[in-house]
């Protein structure tokens, strides 16, 4: 259970999320995949917080929490993003009768 292991898990989660975000047709599935990516980042950040030396450790012990603070913000932003995202999804669903991204190609070329 080394630092690298956490990073690798995070990387795997991130890439699965990326794959999902790129390859799913349903917009909700894409949003879920994006959440996966955010979570993956959070795992890395917290792991770094635990294992690595903060630059200002000598001056300020609280810098060991930077990663966690970062994660808190990411979680919050993710929530906001999902809220807005779902708003757009509903609007899109109302006008398009579909949440399929391959059908949302009115504007192209």
């Amino acid at each position: 259970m080394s630092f690298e292991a956490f990073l690798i898990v995070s990387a795997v989660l991130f890439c699965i999320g990326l794959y999902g975000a790129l390859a799913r047709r349903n917009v909700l599935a894409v949003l879920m995949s994006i959440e996966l990516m955010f979570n993956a980042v959070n795992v890395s950040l917290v792991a770094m917080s635990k294992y690595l030396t903060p630059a200002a450790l000598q001056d300020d012990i609280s810098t060991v929490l930077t990663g966690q603070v970062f994660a808190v913000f990411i979680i919050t932003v993710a929530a906001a993003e999902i809220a807005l995202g779902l708003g757009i999804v509903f609007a899109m669903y109302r006008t398009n009768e579909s949440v399929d991204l391959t059908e949302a190609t009115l504007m192209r070329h």
Partner: protein
Amino acid sequence: MVSQAVIWSIFLLPLASFVLIALVVRPLLNRYSMISGFITIGALGTALGFSIWTLRSVALHHDLTFEPVKWLSVGNATIDMGLLVDPLTAVMLVVVTGVSLLVQIYSLGYMQGDPSFSRYYAYMSLFTASMLGLVLASNIVQLYVFWELVGVSSYLLIGFWHERPAAAAAAKKAFIITRIGDVGFLIAILYLFGRADDFAAIGLNAFHIPDIWQAAQPQAALGAVLGGAALTWLALGIFAGAMGKSGQFPLHAWLPDAMEGPTPVSALIHAATMVAAGVFLVARFFPVFEHSADAMTVVALVGAFTAIFAASMGLVMNDIKRVMAYSTVSQLGYMIAALGLGLYAPAIFHLVTHAAFKALLFLGAGSVNHATGTFDMRYMGGLRRHMPITYILVVVAGLALVGIVPLAGFWSKDEILLGAWNGTGLVDTWVNRVTFSALLAGVIVTAFYTVRMIILTFHGDFRGGIEKELEEKAQAAPAGAAGHGGVHLHESPFVMVLPMALLGIAAVTLGYLANPQWDEQLGIPKHWITGFLADGLGAARGLGGHSETLDFSFGMAVVSTVAALSGIGLAIGIYLKRRDQRAEPLEKLGSVYTLLSNKYYIDTLYEDVAVRKWFFRVIAGTLDWIDRNLVDGTVDLIGWFFRNIGTAIGRFQTGQVQAYATGIAFGVLAIILALLLA
């Protein structure tokens, strides 16, 4: 002593006449267009007087060097506008103003009623001014300037009846062909400027004609600036210009076509003066030419060949003016050949006499045309009964051309033949022999076609004139000829006959009186004109004193007369007694006749093969194709490429948002790879 202002005014008077007619008379007083004629004649009369004054002054050895006016400075040389007055100039001035004056008087009658009367006189004035400027020029660029102006005057006058397509085409042809020769002249000037530093080093101006003479003297104290092969090329460049203007083979093709102009124009420009400018040019630079045996050989051979070559075509022409045109080319060949052999004075002498009798011949042709409306000798005949004065004058002039004692042509042509036989040592002997033979043969041919022309025109029965011609050709009357349309067989009016008569007098007497062969006549010294000119040349070389002239040789006189008479006899024998007046006996010559009447196919070669086919279709066509398809096409292709590559890239824009995200992922990985590999 004649003053500078007087000499300048010889040139300026006709110029002023041109300006006055062009800017005042033509736009404002066109209804009174006769004024133009009088202005011109007045100006030329004065100019003639001044010219004679100048000639006298030169003959009295007055110092006539004047300070030139700076026109343009270029690097180490300046292009000046100045006066170079030597015997050659003086003689030419008189010839030009004299012939011009007579022709202008003649034109009063000939051009009467033409709607563009003023324009005609304006052009004529411009021409005369240019020609005089050319003669007076002291600077080679100045000479070139007037040389070109003379060319453009000729262009304007040939194309005077511009509504006749043939006239417009002939004008263009004349200008372009002479311009080809002028390129040589221009390159010679460029070469001189290229040596300007060397000139400047010894205090000379590369453009100043006397300085060029001086620079070409190998024995000059200052040392030769010009020499060797360069001198030959320089001389040949100048000669190229001369060839163009004087219609020497192979640049002769324009001159016969130039007969599309009004006949007085032909008389003045294409017989007496402008075409002689080539001879004048070679003479002007004779001190340069004579130091290159190679150049002299070329000049002599070209002249000799042209003399016989043009004469041969004159044999078969039906158009009276064309006969004379070829005759002119041929006679110019004599002069050029003479210069090539080193016979400076005889060449100019011949120029002078030729100016008189050839102008007369042309004016005679104009007179005939005035009566018959045509120039085609096949529709003339028997005119001697209706226009006796013209007949007599034309016969006199014709015999002068042939060289019959004691008419003017005899004396001058004999000098040339004699000089060719004797040689001057400037060229190899074989050149002398070849030239002499050609010129002698030329005498026979000249005699033949002259007599043929006289017989066809004046003897036999009248064959219908322009009316008959139109009937046979069934075509619309040429617009410009309308004024002379009808056939009214009678002698020309006085204003036309008077100048002819004066020229006739000159054609009879000029030869002997200008150059008395044995002793002083009427106060004119023995060998006056040749001696005068030869002295001038000596002065140009930097030598003082009197120069050698040729003494009359009975032997040569006999030989040339026999040759002339044999030609005359042959012509009389063939034409005068022929049974069918409409037939052309020379047609019996078969393919030779065809060759001659097609002018050796040279026009075809030039116009159809060289210009139309090779130049226009092949070269210009190819370049045009390249321009439209390759150069332009490349541009269009690039444009097309950019437009379409944009569309192609736009194809990735599928509208599906994840494709865009994939683009981002791809971008990230591409950057990683690129940086790793970089």
